[in-house]
Structures are given as C-alpha cells and as structure tokens.
C-alpha cells in the first residue's frame, strides 16, 4: 500500500475516533443542560461529569491530530480548505474554545453557573453543525475559484438541501451516540434513575438519526452522482450498518446488554462512515484535490507514517490505562473512588 493511502486510511480512522468520542462529549453537554432546564439534573449530572472530567482534553487532541495529519500528508488541503473555510472554521474553533475552557471553569472552578452550562450545552450542538460544513464542501460545487483566489460560495451552501441534511444528521447523530453511551455508562454505575432517563433519550434520538441519514444519502445522490454510485457499490457495508443499528435498538428497547448495544452503534457508524469514505476516494475535495495529486513528498510521508507508528506505541497503552481507570473500573464509575 502506498504511503498516501496508508495516510488517508489512518486519518479516516482518526476522524471516526473523533466522531465517536466527540459525539459523546457534545451530546453529554446538551443533555446536562437540558436536564438542568427540566429539573432532572440531579439524576445525570454527576454521572456525566464523572466520565467527562478525565477525558475532555483527549477529545480535543483527537481533533487536532486529524487536522494536523491531513495538512501534513496532503498540504494542498491546507490551501483549499484553509482559504475556503476561513469563516466557518473560525466559528468552529471559537465555539470549541468557549466550550473547552468553560467546561474547565464549570468543573474545576468553585461555583456552578447556569450560564456556563448553557454555553457548554449550546456549543455542543453548534460545533458539529459548523464542522460538518467541511464534509459538505468536500462533495464539490461549493467553492469558487478565480485565478489563485479560493473562496466559499455561501449562497450555494445555504440554499442547498444537501448541506442542511448533513448539518441535521451531524446534530442528531451526536445526540444518539451520546445517549447510547451514557445509557451504557449509567448501567455500569448501577444508577437506575439516570439509566431510565438516558435510555429514553437514546430511543428518542434513534428515529431522526436513521431518517436524516437516508435524507442525506438521497440528496448526496442528486448532488454528486459519482460518490453516490460508489456508495451503492458498497451496498453490503450500508446494509451491515442498518443491521447493527437494528440490533442496538432491539437491545436498548429490551433493556439488556447496554455495552453490546453501544458497540453495535459504534459499528453502525463505522461501516457507514467507511462506506462514505471509500466512496469518496480518490477525491479529498471534489474535483480539486485527490489523494494522489496532493500527497506530500515520499520522505515526509514515510517520516509521518514512522512517527505515527512510534506514537501509537505510546498512545495505545496510555489510552488503555485511562479506560481501565475510569471506564472499566466499576468502583470509579459508581463514584466510590
């Protein structure tokens, strides 16, 4: 396998990793705020902050990791996406900045504040919306290029149903993924009140998720025929995705094996995300950037792959340690440590 293919595969895996853990984080922020508004916060807030406090920084790193990786492997992406996304990406990073720091202020600071919690909850939904613009413009047709100047076609972006369905899908998937994870976490903590609430949230957000996924898929077909056809050729991956979704829903509905249910949700998104990604190949930005045309020099590509492998030797054991201490340690989850 050539290094640029390894590069894009690894980066796609990291983006998937970010999608899952960031969704848990973003959704949790929204649920925490919503629960406070509906006066149910005593049920779930402690649970949420117990999970999030040790890991929020890690979530942020996943994002920076993907971003630095893609600019490193494919420097042309910096030029096109950088120039076109100046405004939406700046909004996203401002929201990320507000969210990250206010999370720390709220949790490690001394006073609990509704304003902080509101900022934390609201940004949790706005960030996925603003980040999903990058996915939308990768489909092509949203970039204006005049000579050397690249800019975003806002009119096209705001009037196109594809961009709205992607935004919608991003938001509801966040709530769905987060809901199923927190259901699992509550069941580990043997916190029955929180479990009941989170299970309702998870069940509620499953329907819009599947509807918007279908909608986005249909609009994708109208917008980018090539991508749509490629994905249709991967019908079995999409089929698997739907199957995992149904297993997860069946488990949660019947109130058993929440851990397995969450794994099924992860697999559901994994298969769909990879079907989407493979279908996109070889374009990174249709039609300007392909994986091959934008790849960095072989020496740098090799160095990046080497650094990546070296880094994994550090990361995997440390991530395992985090999981062992905070996720699979029953006493910690229950709040006894």
């Amino acid at each position, binding site marked *: 396998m050539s290094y640029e293919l390894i590069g894009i595969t690894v980066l796609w895996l990291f983006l998937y990793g970010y999608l899952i853990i960031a969704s848990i984080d973003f959704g949790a922020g929204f649920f925490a705020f919503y629960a406070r508004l509906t006066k149910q916060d005593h049920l779930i807030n402690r649970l949420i902050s117990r999970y999030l*406090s*040790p*890991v929020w*920084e*890690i979530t*942020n*790193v996943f*994002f*920076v*990791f993907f*971003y*630095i990786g893609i*600019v*490193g*492997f494919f*420097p*042309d992406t*910096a*030029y096109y*996406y*950088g*120039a076109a*996304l*100046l*405004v939406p*990406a*700046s909004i996203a*990073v*401002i929201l*990320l*900045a*507000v969210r*990250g*720091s*206010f*999370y*720390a*202020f709220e949790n*490690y*600071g*001394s*006073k609990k504040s509704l304003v902080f919690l509101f900022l934390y909850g609201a940004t949790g939904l706005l960030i996925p919306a603003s980040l999903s613009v990058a996915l939308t413009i990768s489909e092509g047709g949203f970039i204006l290029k005049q000579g050397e100047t*690249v*800019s975003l076609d806002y009119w096209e972006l705001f009037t196109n149903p594809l961009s709205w369905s992607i935004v919608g899908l991003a938001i509801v998937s966040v709530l769905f993924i987060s809901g199923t994870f927190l259901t699992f976490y509550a069941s580990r903590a043997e916190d029955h009140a929180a479990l009941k609430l989170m299970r309702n949230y998870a069940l509620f957000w499953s329907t819009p998720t599947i509807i918007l996924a279908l909608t986005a898929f249909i609009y994708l077909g109208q917008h980018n025929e090539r991508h749509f056809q490629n994905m249709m050729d991967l019908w079995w991956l999409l089929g698997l995705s739907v199957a995992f979704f149904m297993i997860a829903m069946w488990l949660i509905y019947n109130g058993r094996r929440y851990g397995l249910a969450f794994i099924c949700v992860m697999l559901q998104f994994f298969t769909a995300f990879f079907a989407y990604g493979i279908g996109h190949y070889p374009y990174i930005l249709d039609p300007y950037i392909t994986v091959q045309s934008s790849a*960095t*020099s072989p*020496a*740098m590509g090799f*160095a*990046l792959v080497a*650094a*990546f492998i070296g*880094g994994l030797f*550090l*990361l995997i054991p*440390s991530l395992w*340690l*985090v999981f062992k*201490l*905070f996720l699979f340690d029953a006493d910690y989850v229950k709040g006894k440590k």
Partner: protein
Amino acid sequence: MAIDTVMWSRLVTGLTLAFHVIFATIGVGIPLMIAIAEFMGIRKKDPHYTLMAKRWARGFVISVAVGVVTGTVISLQLALVWPNFMKMAGNVIALPLFMEVFAFFFEAIFLGIYLYTWDRFKNPYTHWLLTIPIVIGAGMSAVFITTVNGFMNQPEGFVMEAGQFTAVDPVQAMLNTATFSKVFHVLSSAYLTGAILLAGIAAFAMLRKGVSAYHKKALNLMMAVALLFGMLNTLAGDVSAKFLAEHQPEKLAAAEWHFETESGSDLILMGWLNAEHEILGALHLPKFLSFLAFGDFNAEVTGLEEFPQEEWPPLLVHYLFDLMVGIGFALVAISLLYFLFKLWKKRNELNKWMLRLVALSAPLAFLGLELGWFYAEVGRQPWIIRGIMTVEEAATTSPTIRTLFFVFLLLYIVLGIVCVIVLRRLFNNNPAEVEMEKWAKEMHNQTIDKGDPAQ
C-alpha cells in the same frame, strides 16, 4: 498606513500567539513545579508540600484549559490565515507538528489520570510517577513546536526547485541550526517563569495575610528553582545571541542598531534614533557587542547596511530586545538577593520590600516572555520563511480577516477575564491554611477510626 488584509492577518496571528504564549508557558513550566513539590512532600513526609502540589495542580487545570483551546485556535489559524504558507511549508514541517500533537496527547492522557487518582494508589510514589509523563509531554511539545519556529527562521533540509521544496529531509528540517538555541531558551524561560509565578503568588499571599509556614516553604522552594533556571536562561540567551551573530546577523544588528560593520563594536542600551539613523541619548558599552556576539572584544560584527533596506526588520525591535534582556537579568538578581538575605543572618529575607520585589517579578517574567517572542517574530520580518517566502505572499486574501480580528479579540478578553475570576474564586475562598487544617482533621479522624491513635 492603511491596514490591508496582510496586516490584519499579522494582527490576528500576533494576537492569538501573544495570548496563547502566556498559557503555553504556564503549561510547560508548572508541571515540573508540581512534580518537585509532590516529591518533596513524599520524601520529607511534609503535608505542606503535598498540599502545594494539589493546589497548584488545581489552578493549573484551569489555565491548561485556556492553553489547550488557544493552541487549537492557532493550529487551525496556520491554514486558515496562511493557506499559501501551509501549502508550501507543510511538506517540510508536518513531522514536528504531528509529533507535537503526540506529545500533547501523551500529556493530556496522564494529566487526566493524575488529577483523578490522588489517594488511589497504596504507594505514594506511584501517583508521583504520573507527573513524569506530564512533564515530559509538556516539555516535548514545546521542543517540537519550537523546531517549527526554528525552521521558519533558519530553513534547512530541502532543495529549492522552481519555487517548490524538493528532496525534503524532515529530520534535518527539524534539527536546523536555529533549533538548539531556541529550544534551550524556550525551556529555560518557561521553567523560570513557572517558578517565578508561584514564588510571586506566595509572596503576594504573605504580603496580604502575613507570613505562614505553607507560603514560606513555597517561596523558598520556588526561589531556588528560579535561581537555577534564571542562570540557565541567561546562558541560553547568550547562546541565542551568538547564534544570531553567526546565522541571522540582520536580526541582531537591528536589535542593537548596529548599522556599519566594524570590529570592536559597542553595545547600545536604549536611546532613540533620528531620521538619519543617528543614535541619541543611548548608553554605550564599549566593545561589548563584539564580546556578546563572538566572545571576543575585537571581533567584527556585521552591520545592517550590508543588507538591502527592504529586508531590514523594523528598528523598533531594539527596545524589545533591551527590555527582555533587562528583565532576564533582574529576575536572576532578585532570586540572588533573596538567598543573600537568607544567608546573611541579620537580614530577614521575608521583609516587606523583598516580598514586594518577588511579587512584582511574576508579571515582569511574563512581560519578558512576551517581549522576547515579539523580538524573535518581528525581528524576522519581512519573511515568514526567512529568505524564501515573505509574509505578503503567505497571507489569506479574504477581507473577512478584519472582522475575525475583532471576534478573536473579544474571545480572548472574555476567556482571560473569566479565567482570572475563576482562579481567584478558587483560591481566595479557600486559603491554604484553612485547607491544611481541614485536611489534618480528616487524617486525624481516619486514624482514630482505624483505632491507631499512635499514628
């Protein structure tokens, strides 16, 4: 001068970095102090030091949060504000950027574990061991990101062909000639600033509420660390000056207002320039510039006139340089004075004036840091990659950058203010002595519960 998109791009990046560097330095410097304090606590069985580590760690998380988010902002701004720069230089600097994120990842993971595992291990050293990956991760991310800045000052590790980098050697680009002196200066100043900050806080607390055992120990410990890193930092500054004299003479010449190449050149302190570039009202130290640059009072130092005037850095950097160096020496002098007072029995090292000086040195250290970075960055104008790409060629062309400047300005004002409020609330409502007493009571109760009053 009308402000164009290039200038706005400069301002946006300068603003973000000036804000980020405060928190980034805390992020690099403080973990070492926490590690030292916790180690002392375990070693001496003195709960004061353990409490120090706990309190510092608590404040540290708040500032780290701001450091993390502004770091994310700057990493994205690299491509958003300077798309042409990233497109070209991405081929050469991607490796250190990538490794920086790894180092940061490593630190983030262990910081999370560290904060939530106090009292979770039987052997206290196990918990202390967790500080090592945090200190290393924080230090290494500074090292890697500094190599990127080194590359922009001293681009190496590639062949230029038709305006593109070819035959790239990423490792050579990382280990460019500028890297060593820069990394040395960045790390020593970060540890110095970390120690001075904590010493300043202790001094400030004692000025307000009188001398206490906890703050006295904190001050003593941090002043010792500050003295050590203050001296290392002076050495690092000297190494950097010698590097500049050899490899970037125009930057040093601009800092020293050294226009004509000559041997045995004077070092010029402060002063001002008239329209004919004559220096007025300055203090001249004969032949000191030659000594500073080459370790020889009669060495020849290249003057600015050897360079085309459009490649001159702004001459304003002279003040930045002088003030930075002045502050660096003042910090060493203050920590030396403190220990002289300690040794000299008749004097009380905790007298009001000494404490005031120490408290003042904390903001001074941060000012010195900002001035140093402004000197380093403004001093290589007009280049973004020295000798290869100018700032004009690299900037975004989007006029929106102007609005974004104000949006980001607002963001940093809000973050800065809220951060200070939260930190004040965290510590003012819970002074060290009160926490110590509460803690001692708990420990006492526990030993009674265990039926072991002898402990």
